[in-house]
Structure formats: C-alpha cells, structure tokens
C-alpha cells in the first residue's frame, strides 16, 4: 500500500465511524421508546457484504454490542441473497437470533451500490411493548412474553409490509409508539446507507472490501498484542445472585490462550421457571464487554476485536433454550461482568475492581385511578442504578450504571408521564462497602401514587440476599431492599401492588470495597463523614 493510500484508509475508517454515529443519532432523535431516547439503549453498526461488523456507534449499550454483530449473520443465513433487493429492510425480535428478549427489535438493511451488494446496516432498539404479559419475569415461556417476529422483511424494495404492521397493531399495548419505533429503526439504516454511498462516491471506491481488510487486519494485530501481554492459564470464579424464588449460582472459567480468551459457564444454575433466563448471545455480549474493558478498552468494536473472545456454556440459565422465558434477561445478564471480572482478578491480582450493584434497578409502573375515582392511567418506566465496586486506586462510582451504559431520566419528566410522585431519589449513606477504596453508594427512592391513584409495578431487582462482594480485603456493599413505607416487605421480582396512600421504598445496593479498610486514608475517612457518605450509625 502506498503511503498516501495508507492515510486515505485511516481517514475512511474515521469516516465510517462517523457514518454509524449519524445512524445512531437519527435513531435517538426519532425514537419513542424511553429506553432509547432517554437512556441510550440502542445500537447501530455497518457490516461488510459477508456480514462482518466494520464499525459500531459508540453510543450503544454493551448488551447490544456483539449481539448485533452475530444477529446480522443470522439474517444472512435466513434470507437468500437472490431475494435481497435495494430498499429492503429485514426485522426480527427473536431472542436467540437477535439480542436476547422480545422487546428488542433488530433491523438489518442491505446496502446496494450500482446493483452490487456492498454491505449491511443494522440497528437495535428496545420498544415500549410487545404484548404478552408485559416487561416482567412472570411469563412461563417465551410464548407468554409477547409477539414473536421471525426474521422476515419489514420492507421489500421500499414497500413496507403492512400485514406485519396490522398484526403488530393488534398485539401490542402502545401501537402508535411501537410502530413509530419500527419506522425510526428503518429510517436510521437508510441514513447510514445514504452516507456510505456518499463517502464511496467521494473517495472513488467501489465497495468496502479494501477498507474492511484494512480495519480487520489493524484491529487483529492490536488485539493479538494485548492478549500476548496477558498471563496464560485458566481461572475460575463463582457468584450467587438472588434469582426469582431460589438463589442462582453463576460459575465461570476464563482461559487465556496465546491468541484467544475463552469463557465457559459450566456449573452455573439451570434454567429458571421465571423470565430471567439469558440466551447465550446476550451472555456473550456482557462477557466480552468485561474482558474488553480490561484488555482492550481503546480498541474499536468490530468483528476482528470480538473474534479474539469465545464463549461456551452447556444449557443453563446463561444458555437458555427456547421456549424458556427471557423477558428480564438483563437482570442476570448484567451480573455476568462481575463474575467474569472475578476470574480475571485471579489472573491479574490487584488490577480488577470489586463487585457492584450490577443489574439496573428498572421499575415498570402501571398506574390507574382508585376504583370509582377519576384520574389518569399510564405506564411509566424508570432506570435507576446502585453503586459500582471500588477500583484498585479509586472509590467506586455512586449511583452509576455498570455494566449497562444507560442514563436515568429526570424525575420532573417522569412525573409528567404518569400520576406518580417521586418523594425521594438521593444517595444512600453507609451503603458503600468499606475498604482502602470505598464502594460506590447506592440510592434511596420513594415513589407514591398521586392522590386518588394506585399502581402495580414490575420489580426487576437483584443483590438483595446476595450483596456485592469486596475485593482484596474490601467489605461487601449494602444489600438492596424493597418495602412499603408501613414496613411491609416486598419481593425483589414480579408484579406487585402499591395501594393509594402508601409509598414504595427502594434501597439500591452499594458497591463492594477494595483493599483493607484499615488502610483507608484519614483524609478520605474524614471526607466520608463530612459529606454524610458514612454516618457511623448501624443500618
């Protein structure tokens, strides 16, 4: 490659990343789903003609990272090449072929230039509703969790499949918003395609082959250097989580080889009766995320960076098979990084953070007027985060999502969406695990129905019976708690009721501490007391 060609390739690589950023931005700006627009629960990427991921928007959340990378291969396997046309868009929400539960819609669009297939654009977003029992753990199988859309055409040659839209419209609770999101997803792929064609026109390239080889070979080389620098061997770890009715054990063995990191989940608990099972594609996304944070945080996501990691598991809760219920797969899926990081901590002692709250404390509220009263009905979804584990040289981040990349919503916006009042949302003192570096604090949330209203809510909480553990002598973070303000204890998962006049009290877990608490600096301890992070009172 000539010197100037080398530079042109570098510049085009940057440009390709900008193309997918534009694609993702279009989705964020047009989406109806709260989780996309407020929380950034989406993903967008560009693929070559063989379905290999070239670039991905950094806007996305890790759960979609290489789920989408694999999903595109599933689309290519399903739709014959001779039935792909310019203007097509394909869709699925199949948990095993897409991103792990029915609420995520994945769309893939072929990109044609002068009649030749040059690549694909793909995107994923979480929609408000898919029918069935709603977003919760109560389905006994995936059939109860909502409508299933197999890999099929959403649009052929630009013509939208109106039969699919009619079926959707009569199967979901918020048809306008859901169908709006389908259009947003398709539109964002269109934007990506247009920008790509513009770019190729400008630089005078016919397709993505040369650029793809450049990206993959550079990434591969960098990944191999990183893996070569790691100690070689196998390390195991286990971690208990609450589960639904029985605790769940997650077991992992991480093997670092010469050119690959392999993660195996043998020994983890079996499939649950409740919708907290995880398809392997989603387990893989979070396992890879954890390793990548440690090994190659600065290397962009593409097929070559993901190829350095492999995942296996016998059939169990982390490799659930159809028709297991999977609606809340994120609750257990978000625990995967902590269990993987625990194994890596043995390979890289003193370098890995303590356990944190892990799963987001999502809450879906279904509010209505009291029987016989006038008022409003509304579905409200909130994302909240507990504390992160302490780092080897830093305190854990308080009330911050990890591993998920989502944001919380302003409570002022939330209170506009439904008849509820959030009376408290602030840091939870004394919840960070003690250590030389303290775990991040959890938070306390109090939610009441507005006067004359009551609500049901779907709990999706974890780390209540099994709090986040500290590392290297650090103490565990405080476990979470769910109750009414009259002291009634509630369950961590499933639909429950909050009557008029009562408040739902949530205590989110704090992160584990790192290192011996006796070695915490006096200044840091004094600051903890001054700021009220640590009160000295017994909880």
């Amino acid at each position, binding site marked *: 490659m000539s010197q100037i060609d080398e530079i042109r390739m*570098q510049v085009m690589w940057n440009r390709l990343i900008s193309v997918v950023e534009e694609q993702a931005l279009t989705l964020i700006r*047009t989406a109806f789903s709260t989780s996309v627009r407020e929380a950034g629960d989406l993903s967008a990427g560009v693929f070559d003609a063989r379905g290999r991921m070239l670039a991905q928007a*950094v806007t996305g959340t890790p759960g979609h990272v290489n789920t989408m990378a694999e999903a595109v291969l599933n689309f290519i396997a399903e739709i014959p090449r001779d039935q792909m046309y310019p203007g097509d868009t394909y869709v699925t929400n199949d948990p095993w072929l897409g991103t792990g539960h029915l609420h995520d819609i994945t769309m893939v669009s072929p990109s044609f230039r002068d009649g030749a297939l040059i690549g694909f654009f793909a995107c994923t977003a979480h929609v408000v509703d898919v029918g069935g029992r709603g977003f919760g753990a109560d389905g006994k199988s995936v059939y109860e969790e909502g409508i299933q859309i197999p890999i099929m055409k959403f649009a052929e040659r630009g013509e939208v499949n109106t039969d699919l839209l009619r079926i959707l419209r009569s199967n979901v609770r918020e048809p306008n918003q859901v169908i709006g999101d389908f259009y947003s997803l398709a539109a964002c792929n269109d934007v990506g395609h247009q920008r790509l064609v513009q770019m190729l026109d400008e630089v005078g390239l016919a397709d993505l082959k040369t650029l793809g080889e450049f990206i993959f070979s550079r990434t591969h080389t*960098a990944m191999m250097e990183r893996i070569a620098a790691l100690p070689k061997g196998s390390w195991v770890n286990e971690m208990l989580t609450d589960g639904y009715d029985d605790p769940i054990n997650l077991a992992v063995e991480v093997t670092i080889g010469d050119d690959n990191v392999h993660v195996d989940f043998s020994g983890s608990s079996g499939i649950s009766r409740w919708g907290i099972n995880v398809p392997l594609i989603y387990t893989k996304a979070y396992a890879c995320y954890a390793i990548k944070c440690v090994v190659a*945080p600065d290397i962009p996501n593409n097929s070559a960076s993901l190829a350095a990691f492999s995942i296996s598991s016998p059939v169990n809760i982390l490799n659930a098979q159809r028709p297991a219920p999977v609606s809340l797969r994120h609750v257990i899926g978000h625990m995967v990084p902590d269990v993987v990081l625990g194994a890596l901590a043995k390979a890289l002692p003193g370098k890995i953070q303590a356990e944190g709250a892990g799963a987001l404390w999502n809450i879906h509220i279904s509010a209505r007027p009291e029987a016989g009263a006038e008022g409003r009905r509304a579905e409200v979804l909130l994302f909240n985060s507990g504390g992160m584990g302490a780092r080897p040289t830093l305190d854990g981040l308080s009330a911050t999502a990890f591993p998920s990349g989502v944001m919380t919503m302003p409570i002022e916006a939330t209170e506009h969406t439904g008849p509820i009042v959030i009376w408290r949302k602030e*840091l939870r003192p004394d919840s960070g695990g003690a250590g030389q570096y303290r775990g991040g604090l959890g938070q306390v949330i109090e939610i009441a129905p507005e006067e004359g209203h009551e609500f049901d809510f779907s709990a999706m909480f974890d780390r209540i019976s099994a709090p986040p553990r500290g590392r290297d002598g650090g103490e565990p973070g405080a476990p979470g708690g769910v109750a009414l303000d009259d002291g009634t204890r509630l369950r961590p998962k499933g639909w429950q009721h909050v009557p008029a006049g009562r408040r739902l009290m949530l205590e989110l877990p704090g992160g584990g501490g790192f290192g011996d608490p006796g070695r915490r600096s006096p200044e840091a301890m004094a600051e903890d007391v001054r700021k009220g992070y640590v009160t000295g009172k017994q909880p």
Partner: protein
Amino acid sequence: MRSGQDIRLGADIGGTFTDIVLDLRGTIFSAKVLTNYAAPEQAILDGIGIVTQDAGISASEIGLVIHGTTLATNALIQRQGARTALITTEGFRDVIEMRTENRFEQYDLNLVLPKPLIPREDRFPVKGRINAQGKELQPLDEAALEELAERIAEQDFGAIAIGFIHSYANAAHEQRAREILQRKLDLPISISSEVSPQMREFERFNTVCANAYVRPQMASYLSRLQDRLKEMGTTCPVFMIHSGGGLISVETAVEFPVRLVESGPAGGAIFAADIARRFSLDRVVSYDMGGTTAKICLIQDYQPQTARTFEVARTYRFCKGSGMPISIPVIEMIEIGAGGGSIAWVDDMGRIQTGPESAGSEPGPACYQRGGTKPAITDADLVLGKIDADNFAGGKIRLSGDSASASISRDIGDRLGLDPMAAAFGICEVVDENMANAARVHAVENGRNISDNAMIAFGGAAPLHAARLCEKLGIDRCLIPQGAGVGSAIGFLKAPFGYEAVGSQVMALSRFDAEALNAMLGGLKESAESFVRSGGTGQITREIVAFMRYAGQGWEIPVSLPDREFNASDREMIETAFRERYAQFFGRPVDGPEIEFVTFSVKAQDSRPEGRREALIADGRPVPASASRDIFDPANGASRDSGIFERDGLSAGDRISGPAVIVERETSTIVTSPFDAVIQADGTILLVRKGVAA
C-alpha cells in the same frame, strides 16, 4: 443606535489574549494584550490605551463599551467561585452529584466523574413540594428555613442558590424561601425559576448553582471595571455580551452572571453572521480554529443557531457528558479538540490521532523550539509548506522546519513507515476529517445538509485548513474576512440588544388551551423585553418558538410561531407547522401519536440598521504570482508549485488560481487546487470551487 455612539469599543477577555477593537466611525483599530488573571480589567485598560492612541482620540470620546469575557467560564472550570449553599427540595439533595447515573465513556473502568459544583455538606434540603402540574403537594417548611438561615450565617458562605423540584411550573416556594433567607442574610441569592425556568432538575439546579457560584466574583470584577473605566475618563455606558449573542446591562449581568458563560465565542458567531448578511448568504457554517480547539456554528438567515442548554468545563477529552450542563439560551457551537497546538500521536491500531492534548503557546509546537517536542498540527502545516517558517505571526516567531520534521518522524512517521511529508499529510487529513465529521453530524442533528452552506472561516489556524475542509464537506464557497484574528471583539460591536426568555409548560396539542398559551408567552415577552429596554431604544422585534415533540419522544424540535395572540382555531395551524418541521428534520411525520408542547422561547431584540450589502464578486482578473514555493496539495496527494501572494498587495477583483497561498501578518490562506480565490470589495477572500458560479 443612539447618537453619540459612533465611536464604539469592543473588549473580549479570552483565555490567552484580551482583544480590544475600536470602531471609529467605520475604521477599525485593534490591539491584543495578554490576559491578566489577577486583574482582568487591567488588560482592558492597557488595550484601550493602545487603540485610543492609535486612533488619536481620548477615552472620553468613546460612546459605548461592549464587553465579553471568559472569566465566568474560567471560574467554573477552575472551581474558583464563592462557597455556595444550595437550598433544595427534601429528598433531592444529590441531584447535582448523581447527574445522569451513567458513564460517558463505556470502557474506561477508572473513569472519574466531575465533582459537583457544590459539595454535599453545603446542600441543604427543606420540606415543601410542588407537583408536575404546579400544584402544591406539601407546604414549604418555613420554620426550617429560618433555622437554616442562622446556620448559614455562622459559616463563611458567599452566595446562595435555591433549586426546588418543578419550580419552573410554580415558583412560589422558591420566591418565599428567598424572602425568608433575605431577611436574615446579606448574601446574593439566585433562584432556579428565574435563572433557568426549564424542566429537568439536573440541568436547572446545576445552572442556578453555577450562577450563584460565580456571582460574587463577577459582581466585584464588573464594579472594579466600571470604576477604572471612569477613572480613565470614559463617561459612556458599558454593556455585556451574553451567551445568546445579545447585549445586557451590567446590572443584569451581575444578577445573572451565568449568562456570560461562553460570551466570547458568541461574539465570533455574530461576527460571522454579520459577514453572512453583508454578502447575503442565508445558509452559513462558521468555522473558528485557534490554538487548542475548533468551533463550528450554523448560521441561518443571518442568525446564529441557538440552543437552550449546553455543557461547560468538559473534563474528559471534550467528551459529551463529562462537563456540567448549563440550561440558558446560548449560541450553539460544537467544539472539538483540534487547534494549531493539538498534538498528533499514533494509537495501537497504527491510526494517527490528534488532540485533545495541546501544546498551547507554551511550550508550543516543536517548530517553535521552546521546549515542545511532540508534533502539533502547526508542525504538520509547516512541513507541508502551508506556513512560511520566516513569516509566522508577523515574523515574531521564527519556526524550525527541521524540528517539526524530526518530531513528526519520531512520533508518527517512523511508527507507520511514512516519510515526514506523508506523515504530516496524514496528521492534517485526520484533523480535517475530524472537523468535517463533527460539522456533518452537527448539521444532521439540526435537520440540515452541510454541503448546502457557505463557510466563513476565522481564527489563526482556520485559513490554513478551510479549503481542504470545504473539499471534504462538498462546500463550494468559503469567505475569509479581514480582522479575523479579533473576530469576537468585532462581533460584539454588531450584537443587538437582545434577550431570550425561556419557560417550560408541558401541554398536549389535543388539549390546546389558547388562553394558557397567551398567558405563558405574555410573561416571557414581558421578561425578554424588559431586558432589551434597559439598553436599546430602537423598535423591538420578537421571535416566538415552541419546542415540541410527539408525546413519548424525548427530543423536542423548534417550531416557529407567529407573534400574536392565539385562539382555539390555531390548533390546526400549529399542528401543520409541527409536522412540516418534523419532516424537515427526520424525513417524514408520524401518524398516530399525540403532539405536545414542552418549552417556549421568546427572543426580543432591538432592530439594527441594515449594514451595507455587497454582492459577491465571483469573476475576477487573474493575477500572476511574484513568487512560489512547494505546497502539498491533498487532492493530488503530492507537493505542487504554488503561487505566493501578499494579502495586503491584492485588490478587489483579483483572482488567484489554486494551488496558491495568500499570506498576511497573522496567518496564511491556503487555496487548494480545486479552488480559486477572489478578493472582495471589503478585502474578504472568497474561496470558490473551480467551475462554480458564486
């Protein structure tokens, strides 16, 4: 403007330089003085001394002083404001600390979040609650406030901020709390419903905290400045430029100093807007590139694009989310870490990266030979022949091509197997591409197509990169005005007396309530106009914008509304306007979902006299170069013999065919091979793509 103001002075305090511009009945005198952090007013006085002497006038003849400053921004970045107490709603003590609960960089496990402006021990919750509709759910605990006032009085607080939940919908509790505290405390009190009456508590609370935090310092500075100006003999009024690009009185600035944040860059955008108007260019992208950053702003119909919220003091590679949000009307600019001093490096994939680390002016790029060894953009520009080593910054700094070349080889070329020229080309291509990507994405975010715009380039480094940037963006025309080095201060002189008042009121269009809308807008009009009347005397024009969305979406789009009273039959008109605007942004409107209002804005400003208009001169007479040198031409990927022209020696109608370079004291304009340059009547350089009519 008033009579007697035909001698006007603009003063811009920037991070490195304080720029002073004197407009003596149309003739511009300017001075650059090093910013004096200990006594910022001193630099202004020194600058005034220089320009008045150059102009041969006395300070007392100045009719008007317009001032913009980064001091408020710096106080926020360097955390040098007053110790401030935040009084907030019980249950929400940690809003400014918990932020959005996410990590702005996904893969960095050692991420550090910015510290809240006001530490937890200085945040005091009190009972009292308003709901989303503005109804009181729980009365304000006045007794607790009385007690709190005493506790605050015992400590060394310098300012107070009050931020209550839903105060944008009902300000009664905030106002009452202020009354109670005022009776017992002699401290400036800022309340969120006045500083930033917009929904979203994190942004609003942070804004009121920032306002309170910089208030004592700005009040003291502005009073010193006024005193010193009087001592110097000036008798004229002083006005401040605000972040939205208009003028406000010093008294308003003292009360709402957060409005001064980013006022310097706002001046640059007004400068560009004025040039756009002069040449009747209705769609423009302004491009300002200095030593550490590049800023890009969209200008439509001669008005810089504004936003209702922005982020200052980013702590992590200019990364979105790593700063603090300020929700006030602001001229919207995207800023990226790409300036002449930005350092180039190679990542582990063998990719050239630039910035955000900057060599600044000390030690500076390697070619300055002042101790800087890392290759900067300026080094690459030098190696490519774009800068003349002997005539940089008017010959004040002699540059070393050998040092530039050596640093580029060591850090870039040797790692990638590139010769210094190719490596320098790589550096410039990457920085230009990054700027182009940022501009493209910014245009898309605003429903616009970047290639439909003309570019206006200013700032020391912009003319070196503008032509290549235009090539990448498909832009055909670029203007490089005179006085580009002190563009912001010149812009100040063009700013209208203007103010934008913003308020939130969520309302479904299906339950359109014309009376409520009229009442809301009436209040905003009153508020905006009272600021304008404090300075301007001309006729006031107003612009009304509703920020609307489909219920369920999180992003609002601006929809212009007519400036009149509304009645029930206007619903349809507003719906049509929204749908058209939505289609403009996102391709097609959506059928089904409800449409709602979220926020309203009223912008009032006094009408300005139309400046002179000029037609673009597109054709011109070709002029030959007197000298030439080799300059790397990116379109050909090779060095080409390029004509050298002195800007001062050119006159209106001269046409230069690229590749060429036009040199002046402060910078050089590169004319790449796809472009020609045509000199305009006012000395502006027009870069126009070959074969395109202006």
